């Protein structure tokens, strides 16, 4: 391993190299490559069944990849040491245990296994989220359980926080305050965060990076701003009938009627706009897309 690779490993808290995972012969992840840099916040976006949960679980060593490599803090996730586990926090899609406990008992139980568990911090966060820590988890609403699960993952101030659809059960105000909390944690403690969600506005608010997953493959990984610059919708108004553009690999979607057309293009470069205008003998206007539109276009 050369020096630059070593540096990369140091700066990447999470690395997935060509990861394949299948359940009973059915492929779920197909050659996934993903990196999360130290201090970065990344949103994982994908349709239902695209493999988001499997990706997160594989990344954490909860599942073993059939092929490929998963590294957390430069250590094999499948054989993670106790020290690495001390630096990790995970929020599952649903709180998957201890329904008979109260949050207070749950935090005490969890805290026993972490060296730097901060009970005061958990208490103040619980107060902030208005969680009654003395009532049984089984009597709580889905949203309150989710919040409890989040607190359970935050108590030991992890360096890497992985959240599987953390806001799915939260109401808009709780969601907003949670996102704010996430940003604060990232800013205050330089915690790297990877979270999956269906809500694109949350990703736009909280994350600088995004990974889009489709049928077990990463369609895009990088900055949200870059993605927005790259995927745009262009409106063409030509004086003559437009040529067939469906075979162009940059065109994701097209809608052409006579001499007007609407194309969604990937890898758009504003410098090439003049060339297109000349080629098609048309007037072209560019429309910026929202993240949700981009997601829909890429998944179409």
């Amino acid at each position, binding site marked *: 391993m050369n020096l630059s690779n070593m540096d990369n490993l140091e700066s990447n808290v999470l690395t997935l190299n060509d990861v394949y995972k299948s359940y009973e012969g059915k492929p779920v992840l197909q050659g996934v490559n993903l990196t999360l840099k130290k201090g970065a916040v990344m949103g994982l976006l994908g349709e239902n069944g695209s493999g988001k949960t499997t990706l997160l*679980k594989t990344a*954490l*060593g*909860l*599942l*073993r990849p059939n092929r490929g490599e998963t590294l957390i803090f430069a250590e094999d996730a*499948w*054989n993670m040491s*106790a*020290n690495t*586990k*001390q630096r*990790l926090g*995970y929020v*599952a899609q649903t709180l*998957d*245990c*201890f*329904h*008979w*406990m109260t949050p207070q*008992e749950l935090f*005490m*139980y*969890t805290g*026993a*296994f*972490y*060296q730097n568990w901060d009970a005061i911090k958990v208490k103040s966060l619980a107060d902030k989220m208005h969680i009654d820590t003395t009532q049984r988890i*089984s009597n709580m609403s889905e949203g309150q359980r989710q919040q409890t699960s989040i607190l359970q993952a935050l108590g030991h101030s992890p360096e890497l926080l992985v959240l599987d659809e953390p806001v799915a059960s939260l109401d808009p105000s709780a969601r907003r305050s949670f996102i704010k909390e996430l940003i604060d944690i990232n800013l205050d403690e330089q915690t790297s965060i990877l979270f999956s969600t269906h809500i694109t506005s949350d990703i736009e608010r909280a994350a600088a990076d995004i990974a889009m997953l489709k049928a077990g493959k990463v369609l895009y990984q990088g900055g949200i701003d870059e993605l927005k610059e790259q995927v745009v919708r262009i409106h063409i108004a030509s004086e003559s009938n437009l040529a067939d553009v469906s075979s162009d690999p940059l065109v994701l979607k097209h809608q052409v009627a006579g001499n007007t057309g609407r194309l969604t293009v990937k890898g758009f470069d504003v410098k090439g706009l003049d060339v297109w205008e000349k080629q098609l003998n048309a007037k072209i206007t560019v429309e910026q897309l929202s993240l949700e539109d981009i997601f829909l276009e890429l998944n179409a």
Partner: protein
Amino acid sequence: MKQYLAIIKRDYGASGGETFWLPAPIYSLIIVVLITWLFASSSGSFPAWQFLALSILGAYRILDDLSLSRGHSFGFLAPDFHTYQFNYSTSLVFISSVLTCAIFANSFYEFFVCLSVLWLITSSMFFFVRKEIWRLTGFIGLGIYILIWFLMIYVKQNEYFFSLWQKIVTSVWSIFSIPAIGITISCVCLAVTYKSFLLARSNYLKPAEYDPNLAPRTWKKHRKSSNFTPLQLFANARRSSKTWGKIESRVLFGLDIGRHEDLLYLGLFGAKVHSFLLKCIFGFLVVLFALPLFFVNEINHEAILIPICIFMLFYLVVVCTAISLEWIYNRKSISDLWLLDNSKNRRRYMLKVAMLFAERIGRVSLFACAVFMLFTLIISGVKGGLIVGLVALLAVALGLLLQMTYVLFVTTSVKNTAWLRYVTVLFTAFNFIGWLAVALFSLQQKQYWILALAIVLAAGLCFTSIKFWCGYAKELRA
């Protein structure tokens, strides 16, 4: 140390949660107490098989907890969780086995021999924690349970088996009576134990995939699982056999027949875990119940009625407890299902729901009575069989009336607390045993007024509880 304290606290909390299971430390303590009692009651000549069977059961229960860490993400991601859980369970096995051996043994030599044999057996059980061999474990577990029950009931009834068993025990014991051989065997046992323990440890601590389906009942609420409780073992074994499935569906005909299309019935009882549990218990007991048939020609016909009667009582207590708890836990759905039902008013609806419960519990009890009566007819002839059968029927009918009263009262008035399940078990046990005693006493002593009074009392209580139930105006909460 704080990790172990947290695990102990968790175990005690779990016992008050969702299951019948006692926490492992309490369970091991009960085993120790039971062995002491058996030892005292057998005036020094304690049967080795009982000692071994109970010790293994204790260890088995403790090891059951090891599968905990495979069932949820915390077990995987909390630092060294597997190690702590393993050490904790191992220590419990160690402490309880040392205690039981100390009670059992008359000398240090006996203590040493017993401990080494016990550790050899329990250390081999550590391998069964892994998922890959759960099916095998299922069969072994089922085998052990059937064997234990079989021995407990038949060994003392059957001279041939008893003498054969005595011979085996005596010959094995005579080998150990020579200290040199005993110590050599024990040392070999300890060496093998040590090796198998290390192997099991590395096997357990080896990374494995997270499988939420392995989540044990003691940790989770109302979820099916592939853990290693005896019932689950039975279920595992059951699932792997198509023939068994067919037999079971025939045997269970009395439970759900004619109700597959009833939405209210399905809403209340369908696909609920306790129905699943109930089937397992039922199937298991039917197997045990059928066993005497094989030995009808070999022993005193009248004597065989005693184990059958015990089985029937045991069956009734277990099944009625399961149905009662199923009902109590599902009480929240009674409020929800009101919207789907076409009853005229809520009063009628509540009556309908109560009748469904009565029908469900009545069906299984009557089925048990019918089977019991069949046995009594075969064994004691028509006259004797009918008398014994009718006594049983009477006792069951009285028991059902009071059981219904209890359940309707609890559903409306008692919160789901830690002790509810234990109270229900005790109540059901005393209910059926008590009524059987009353019925037997009044018929034997020809004091029929006692029976009549009991019937009036039970019916009156049941009627009042149904009336209260129908007029219950508050929301039912889980």
